[in-house]
């Protein structure tokens, strides 16, 4: 019957997640996004005024109600407000908040200089390619192909127990014959035995490569590495596609608790990694089937999701994961598009909330080989983790710092990628100066910029020690925004998105909570070790702040203790670097597994004084100004 005409459904695809959703014609893009669960923020509730829900339409037809909050320049480039745009045909669009990150800003090459690798840089991977020329078989010598191979291999290396993968046996006969017996084998050494994992003709000129990858809750970063030389050939990073299932690990664990959801999360992280593999191999001109070894670091939950293991018990008391130390697993078990026989290693966790990202990070510091000096390693992420100690003892704890210093949950916060304001200075004249990554038009502010901004607002008396604007000072400068009072960093006309870049009191409260969580965790760790800050010789700071973090400003806001600035070393993404070091030699893998086993984990939830320390730290720089003598001096001079 004609009257029963089926209403047309339309397919909307969101990049970079490649998430599709089928919707009825005429609904707004915002409604379509909400159906997918992708985190697209709006602060005006879909009224078309805040401009937060901007998307870029790459193809398809649509109907626009209003684009008042966007500049003409952006509209002409295909940008539109999701809440004000109705879908009319199949659409492909991009969520600019989650554009690919620039690798340059995520991986600072300075951190990869070999002399900074604290003595753990050594290229001796467990994976080797060995060229063999097999003797010709004859009626007199009718030894089997495999035996013949083993015989030649034994001449080149000392082999104890030799294993051979079935996939190798399957193709051995023809590979030997078609190559005129000039073959290459790829072997993987472990303590117990040597395994042949691939064989091919020398004429194919295949090489062996590896990948090192940091599986972050928000971002995933990957290096493609030449396993013969140890050189990093190319790198890439992107948002973790799991973001659409929850922004933090707890919400992802919750998400995984319905049938099929764990598999979905697993597929999303494998998909993210495969995407980065594609990008890096294309850049370097190698085949992904030549990747035989992969080293991963990540927090305990991310590793569980990557390995498709039940994460539920990580968040239920008494917080017991399936495993901390991950045995070698195979590619086919985790769905990666690299060589099917490739070996996969993961940095060991200490517990549910101190993961492999931290143990890997320790390899970037001399802590593990320093017998006399004490060091404190601080990784400021959504989960803040700390390790205190030296060669002989290590004490560790985790605190919930929130994503603020990675730009999460902050109105104009963003990861450290092009367009992010990475440094801010307010001059005594009141003039504000900032530096943008890649000198682009500013899109938002990344962690290092937020640290600077908070410190500058505080030191100049724009905010009180509780983080609230002092109207007697800022009457002219502070704006009323939909989210309360805000300080203008850059006017709409000069910003990329054509809207004011503002930091609100709410944002400041987030930042203060984050820094308070980290500082109070430091305090508890020190208290439990019986050490004072002056007994700590080095502080290693890691995290997603961006390339540059002003230690001075981090002290001024009370994120880091007020000690000699020479003692601080900023590492950037130490988890990735650690994964790289583990990839390069089995020695590091063994070593870090042993270290992880010996670390003492301190559960802050069970620490009665933590709450007291925490509320004490919810002030600029701290309720006890005497803990921060240099800040006190500066503050008193300014007021």
């Amino acid at each position: 019957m004609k009257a029963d005409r089926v209403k047309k459904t339309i397919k909307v695809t969101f990049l970079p997640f490649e998430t599709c959703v089928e919707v009825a014609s005429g609904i707004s893009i915002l409604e379509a996004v909400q159906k997918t669960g992708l985190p697209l923020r709006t602060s005006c509730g879909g009224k078309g005024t805040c401009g937060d829900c901007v998307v870029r339409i790459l193809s398809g037809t649509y109907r626009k109600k209003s684009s008042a909050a966007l500049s003409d320049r952006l509209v002409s480039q295909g940008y539109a407000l999701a809440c004000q745009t109705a879908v009319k045909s199949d659409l492909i669009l991009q969520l600019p908040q989650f554009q690919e990150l620039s690798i340059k800003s995520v991986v600072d090459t300075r951190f990869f200089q070999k002399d900074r690798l604290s003595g753990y840089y050594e290229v001796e991977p467990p994976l080797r390619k060995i060229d063999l020329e097999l003797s010709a078989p004859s009626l007199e010598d009718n030894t089997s192909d495999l035996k013949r191979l083993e015989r030649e291999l034994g001449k080149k290396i000392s082999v104890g127990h030799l294993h051979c993968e079935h996939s190798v046996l399957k193709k051995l006969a023809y590979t030997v014959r078609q190559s005129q017996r000039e073959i290459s084998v790829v072997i993987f050494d472990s303590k117990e035995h040597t395994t042949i994992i691939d064989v091919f003709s020398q004429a194919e000129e295949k090489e062996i490569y590896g990948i090192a990858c940091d599986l972050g809750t928000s971002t995933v970063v990957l290096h493609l590495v030449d396993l013969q030389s140890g050189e990093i050939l190319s790198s890439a990073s992107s948002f973790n596609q799991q973001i659409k299932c929850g922004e933090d690990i707890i919400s992802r664990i919750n998400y995984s608790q319905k049938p099929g959801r764990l598999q979905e999360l697993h597929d999303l992280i494998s998909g993210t990694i495969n995407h980065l593999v594609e990008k890096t191999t294309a850049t370097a001109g190698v085949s992904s089937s030549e990747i035989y070894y992969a080293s991963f670091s990540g927090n305990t939950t991310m590793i569980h999701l990557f390995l498709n293991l039940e994460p539920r018990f990580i968040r239920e008391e008494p917080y017991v994961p399936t495993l901390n130390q991950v045995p070698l697993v195979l590619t086919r078990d985790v769905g990666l598009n690299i060589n099917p026989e490739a070996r996969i290693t993961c940095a060991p966790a200490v517990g549910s909330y101190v993961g492999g990202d931290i143990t890997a990070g320790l390899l970037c510091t001399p802590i593990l080989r320093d017998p006399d000096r004490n060091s404190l390693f601080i990784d400021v992420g959504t989960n803040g983790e700390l390790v205190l100690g030296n060669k002989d003892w290590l004490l560790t704890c985790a605190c919930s710092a929130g994503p603020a210093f990675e730009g999460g949950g902050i109105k104009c916060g963003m990861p450290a990628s092009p367009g992010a304001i990475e440094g801010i200075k307010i001059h005594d004249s009141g003039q504000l100066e900032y530096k943008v990554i890649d000198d682009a038009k500013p899109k938002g502010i990344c962690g290092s910029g937020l640290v600077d901004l908070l410190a500058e607002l505080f030191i100049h008396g724009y905010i009180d020690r509780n983080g609230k604007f002092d109207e007697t000072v800022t009457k002219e400068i502070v704006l009323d925004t939909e989210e309360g009072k805000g300080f203008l960093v850059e006017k709409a006309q000069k910003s990329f998105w054509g809207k004011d870049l503002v930091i609100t009191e709410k944002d400041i409260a987030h930042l203060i909570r984050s820094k308070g969580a980290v500082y109070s965790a430091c305090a508890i760790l020190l208290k439990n070790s019986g050490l004072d800050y002056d007994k700590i010789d080095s502080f290693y700071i890691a995290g997603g702040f961006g390339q540059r973090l002003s230690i001075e400003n981090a002290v001024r806001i009370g994120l880091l203790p007020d000690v000699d600035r020479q003692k601080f070393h900023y590492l950037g993404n130490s988890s990735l670097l650690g994964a790289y070091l583990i990839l390069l030699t089995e020695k590091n893998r063994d070593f870090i597994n042993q270290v992880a086993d010996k670390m003492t984990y301190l559960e802050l939830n069970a620490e009665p004084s933590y709450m007291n320390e925490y509320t004490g730290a919810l002030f600029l720089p701290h309720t006890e100004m005497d803990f921060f003598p240099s800040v006190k001096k500066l503050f008193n001079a300014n007021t």
Partner: protein
Amino acid sequence: MTFEIPEETHAGKVMEVTLGATPDQGGTRSHTVKIGGSTSSPFHFFEGEHPHSPVVAMEVFDQVPAKYPDFLRNYCRDVIDQPAAMAKKCVAEYGAELISVRLEGTHPEKGNRSVEEAAEIVKHVLESVSVPIIVTGHSHFEKNNEVMKKVCEVSAGENCLINYVETDNYKTIAAACLAYKHTLVAQSPIDVNLAKQLNILLTEMNFPAEKIVMDPLTGTLGYGLEYTYSIMERIRNDGLAGDKMLAFPMLINPGYETFRVKETRAAEKDYPEWGDLEARGIYWEISTSMSLLVAGAELLIMYHPQAVDAVKKKIKEMFVPKKGN
């Protein structure tokens, strides 16, 4: 051999705060009330000085709270809707040493009375009694700020105790107190650090320390009293140990807190084992008050006349300065 009580000596001293102002001080009170000044733990006369006894205030209302129990109304039934007259009665008949005027009726969701109305009530109370007064507001920042600004203005010079400010809303009211010479209650939610932070914020805006009274936001018996007790004790100990930002006298609200919980409101017929409702309420308020007095409370805003009487008697009994002090 005689037993010697070991004595603690303290470096710090609780700030002495004066409430009210007499005509030669710019007000119209017949006398002032001083609290604070202690150099040792509450009632430890053997190891320090306590120049001022804790005092008991009673409360009158611009609008009687819906939960105000019937048995309490009986004591003021004739004047309950006339704050000035009720204030007079509380002082003359029930021995209130100060009067708190609670202006909850100005809250937009609880009557939304006007700023002017509130100011009038305060003026009338000031005229009807000669004791120092406390003006108690509410948590609707925007309205409360307007009300308190006006109250400060119309009572200029009286050195009222303006009750209260909190960390997220202190500047407007503190500035009004400064301008019109009033004393201020700094309220924080049962936490030593948060209490200290607010005091720091106030003194950093040059609010005089001798004009600050702290309210650690205590509940009543059965509602975490042990916890509030230990917080008050820690505040006082830190203050006596020399932390100036915690060395302020403390105010508590046993009346308001006691007569809004189920235990003082559930009828005897429903809970026969709980006994007589009114007696229960009186004991509840007394237990709360006495516990917190020992923790360091020095200004109590109470409701039940019999509880007021009992607590005042007990304070008198316990407040016995050592000879020679």
